[in-house]
């Protein structure tokens, strides 16, 4: 299976990421059941393994599981995207230092192109990644390695339940793993397709991989066919290409030429932010955190990388508001005299549109914004004119989110940093 021409991907996936971030700075939480709540303390968005075992469902509204939480003395934290964003960057930078060609897929997942390393001991290679990320950042990760991204993702899910590393080394192994893997858990198979496949009696990933192409195309269109090919070991998603992420939306690009001008970076980020916001709205979701980054070539001195992150008080999918943050991020991080080669942004803390009701009355007029965005999404062309939105930078909301159980931002705020006892 691993000939010289086939690609080889690793998916590095942080285990229970938000819960793990909390634990790095609060060792008291180790081995205790722990859950993290969404914006406004609405529902469960992360669970430690112990909390999973106690039967706390993902996405459950907090008030519904309150008695279960009290009964088992489960630790509860409000989400702290500033902390998670910083820890995510640390994990990604660690990966960039110890492996090559890191593609950030979401706040807690990254792909690495391992084609160059196929002749190495991959188990040892993966173990080194796990150990180093754990030691440097405190975050535990699982790693799946396979010739396609979809298989690498599937392997990482298997790795999570075993010793942290799963490598699909040959075809026999691929078939064994697919046979024991539920169709609905495959990357890129949505809930709708999952239900449809169940109705046809297709339960395992192996059964799906064995269906004829014509049937797949008829029932799951061309994207479904790509996923199925990937399950068979034929790479269809190249480096920097993937089906939509679940927990965050990342848009980043290399520039066609080095850029030394703030306005040009703003123009680029305006484009990416607009795209990311469109994706967000297409998925009927809102973001509560935006991270903006841009950097010069890593191979040239002086190297400069800027990263700025902002918590958004009321989750939004409103392009002008997101743009205001993006522009602010560029202006505060830009350094004159540097030739920048890449820029991007990540939207995280995603919630479904209807989770957002609490702030309807003190927030901006959501209904109006939604109508406006709907109009503008159809009249897409206008979005090149980023100057249109400068005015919105002044409308900075001053109220705070309801996050009553938020941990300190241990790694990003000087007045909240970790206390080390000298007693």
């Amino acid at each position, binding site marked *: 299976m691993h000939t010289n021409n086939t690609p080889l991907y690793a998916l590095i996936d942080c285990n229970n990421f938000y819960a793990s971030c909390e634990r790095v700075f609060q060792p008291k939480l180790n081995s205790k059941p722990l859950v993290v709540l969404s914006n406004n303390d609405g529902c469960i968005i992360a669970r430690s393994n112990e909390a999973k075992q106690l039967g706390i469902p993902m996405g459950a509204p907090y008030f519904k599981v309150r008695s279960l939480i009290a009964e088992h003395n489960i630790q509860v934290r409000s989400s702290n995207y500033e902390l998670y964003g910083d820890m995510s960057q640390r994990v990604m930078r660690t990966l960039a230092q110890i492996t090559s060609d890191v593609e950030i897929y979401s706040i807690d997942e990254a792909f690495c192109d391992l084609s160059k390393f196929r002749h190495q001991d991959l188990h040892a290679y993966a173990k080194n990644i796990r150990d180093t990320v754990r030691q440097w950042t405190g975050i535990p990760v699982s790693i799946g390695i396979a010739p396609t991204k979809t298989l690498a993702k599937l392997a990482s899910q298997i790795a999570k339940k075993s010793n942290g590393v799963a490598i699909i080394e040959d075809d026999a192994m691929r078939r064994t793993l697919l046979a024991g893997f539920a169709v609905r858990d495959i990357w890129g198979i949505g809930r709708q397709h999952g239900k449809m496949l169940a109705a046809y009696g297709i339960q395992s990933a192996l059964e799906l991989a064995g269906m004829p192409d014509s049937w797949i195309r008829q029932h799951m269109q061309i994207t479904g066919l790509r996923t199925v090919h990937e399950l068979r070991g034929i790479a269809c998603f190249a480096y920097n290409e993937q089906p939509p992420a679940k927990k965050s939306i990342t848009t980043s690009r290399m520039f066609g030429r080095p850029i030394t001008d703030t306005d040009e970076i703003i123009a680029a980020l305006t484009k990416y932010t607009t795209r990311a916001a469109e994706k967000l709205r297409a998925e009927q979701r809102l973001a509560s955190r935006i991270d903006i980054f841009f950097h010069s070539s890593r191979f040239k001195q002086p190297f400069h990388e800027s990263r700025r992150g902002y918590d958004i008080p009321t989750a939004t999918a409103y392009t002008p508001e997101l743009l205001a943050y993006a522009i602010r991020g560029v202006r505060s991080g830009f350094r004159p005299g540097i030739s920048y080669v890449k820029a991007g942004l990540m939207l995280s803390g995603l919630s479904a549109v209807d989770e957002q009701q609490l702030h309807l009355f003190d927030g901006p007029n959501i209904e109006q914004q939604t109508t406006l965005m709907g109009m503008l999404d159809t009249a897409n062309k206008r979005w090149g004119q980023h100057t249109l939105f400068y005015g919105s930078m002044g409308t900075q909301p001053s109220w705070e989110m309801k996050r009553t159980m938020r941990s300190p931002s241990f790694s990003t705020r000087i007045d909240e940093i970790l206390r080390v006892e*000298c007693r």
Partner: protein
Amino acid sequence: MQSIIRPRELQARPAKRVRLALAPVQAGFPSPADDHLDGHIDLNELLIENEPATFITRAAGDSMEGAGIFDGDLIIVNRALRPVNGSLIVAELNGEFTLKRLRIIAGQPWLYAENAHYKPIRVTTELNVWGVVKHTIRIHGHAHE
């Protein structure tokens, strides 16, 4: 909204740069240092060896005064360093973080304070080292604030 304080922001602000000392100005003679005006000392470079693995924390208490670390000092913790005999370490002890000097005595790890009022602790279970400390920062001159 507050700005996020990251170690690298220091680097990004020209105002934080410290100029290298230049030759005093002598009328008529161009200083040979003029060609090297770009030089600056980067505190981040000096204090942060491995950025993703470095965390800034704060000392609370007087047990490390013998090592020159006082209450309120900033402690720069590098998680990438392996602790050795004599390392200053941040260890997890009973669910808290504590700053100690690691000593290996007859193959056994001990945690030493640097203040006669505190007794050394012999580590009998697995020692959880959170990170290693090579640098600390003390803010002087509160009188000027």
